[in-house]
């Protein structure tokens, strides 16, 4: 908002009737013409629009707590919840037993590194795909596929962007993770290596070191695995690191 832009009472009321849609056709035509011609005027109108929205927004905000009082209070009942869950799980107990049996046969017949890898590899849940992200459409398009478990498609889409933006940390990170899920650890490493070169405030930095450590573990390079895991501050990497050191 410009300091020098005075708005008279009449002008304010005219702008308001425009925003509220109470102008007649002729007034509206004149007004629109002025909007097209006068950049300053346009800014004034935009400013008033935002102000009105701000007033309403804040008014609503203060009323929400009042509204919330009418909502019947939920008691957080632990016991009942557990009962329901227990019943729910009992149905699957038999199936689970079989899976565990098969799993343990496989578990005891694989080498230690693979075991640790399988135990500690947990998929990154991905980013929320909000609807208003228009500028990053391709990236989020890939994210939708990723979340659906279509890792191959996600990888294809992201690789296209990656060629144009090799320095995109978030992209490199998710490409690396997706490649790891897709059992392509050796291809994942270069992307993860690139993502950990990011600035310190990179939000996935700790996770990226963690996955990079896991990837090296899977590839059998214990030294590099330990080195990267030690650079990650997550709890999981600390636990894994201590297991590797034992």
């Amino acid at each position, binding site marked *: 908002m410009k300091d020098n832009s005075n708005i008279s009472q009449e002008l304010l009321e005219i702008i308001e009737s425009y925003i509220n849609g109470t102008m007649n056709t002729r007034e509206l035509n004149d007004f629109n013409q002025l909007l097209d011609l006068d950049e300053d005027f346009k800014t004034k109108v935009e400013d008033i629009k935002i102000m009105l929205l*701000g*007033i309403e927004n804040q008014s609503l905000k203060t009323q929400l707590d009042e509204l919330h009082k009418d909502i019947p209070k939920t008691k957080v009942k632990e016991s009942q919840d557990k009962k329901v869950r227990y019943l729910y799980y009992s149905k699957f107990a038999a199936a689970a037993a079989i899976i565990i049996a098969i799993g343990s046969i496989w578990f005891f017949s694989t080498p230690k590194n693979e075991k640790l890898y399988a135990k500690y590899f947990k998929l990154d849940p991905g980013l929320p795909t909000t609807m208003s992200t228009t500028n990053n459409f391709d990236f989020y398009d890939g994210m939708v596929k990723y979340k659906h478990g279509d890792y191959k498609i996600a990888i294809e889409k992201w690789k296209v962007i990656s060629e144009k933006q090799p320095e995109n940390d978030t992209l490199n990170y998710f490409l690396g993770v997706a490649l790891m899920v897709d059992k392509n650890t050796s291809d994942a490493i270069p992307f993860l290596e690139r993502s950990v070169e990011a600035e310190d405030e990179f939000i996935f930095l700790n996770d990226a070191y963690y996955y990079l450590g896991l990837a090296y573990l899977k590839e059998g390079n214990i030294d590099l695995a330990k080195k990267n895991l030690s650079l990650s501050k997550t709890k999981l990497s600390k636990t894994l690191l201590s297991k590797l050191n034992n």
Partner: protein
Amino acid sequence: MGKSVQYLNQLELINAIKSNDSYTLERFYNDNYKKIELLVLKNNGSLEHAKDVYQDAFITVWTHIKSNKFTPKNETALEGYIYRIAKNKWIDILRSKSFKNSNTLNYEILEFVGSDDSESNDLKNNKLKLTMLAFKNLGQPCKELLNIFYFEKKSLKDVASKLKIKESTARNKKYRCMEKLRAMVLASK
């Protein structure tokens, strides 16, 4: 749940929300809360978290409706929309570093997530936030008057009778209050 607002079709519902119809806002608020509370409680959150995330989502939905960013595609579109927004906000909070480090309610996270709406017009958002803050700090008489006129959408005549002043006084006062608010926004920049 949800029945009470369903007699309105989506377009009617949206128009009623646009005009801040208090009954509709209240119903819409109450009808959609429990689902989100359940979601948050089931996913490591507290009642307090649920309320904050929900209110944040509620304001976002309302703002989107106001600025015509939302068009309903089916009869329960708005209900689904507020649920998705709240869910995304909750996921953001769960994934934020500070949440992982501490499980106590951290208003900074909520603030941060709430502001990060991934909208391109940051400048506009910033102006909006400044206005909201200025309005919050505006003196009570001005606040009341502007609230009745702009939020409750009452006519100047109604404003005047409610505040027991003359209509012409109400008009002048309204203008002066707006000027004051504008000045506060400019000063806070």
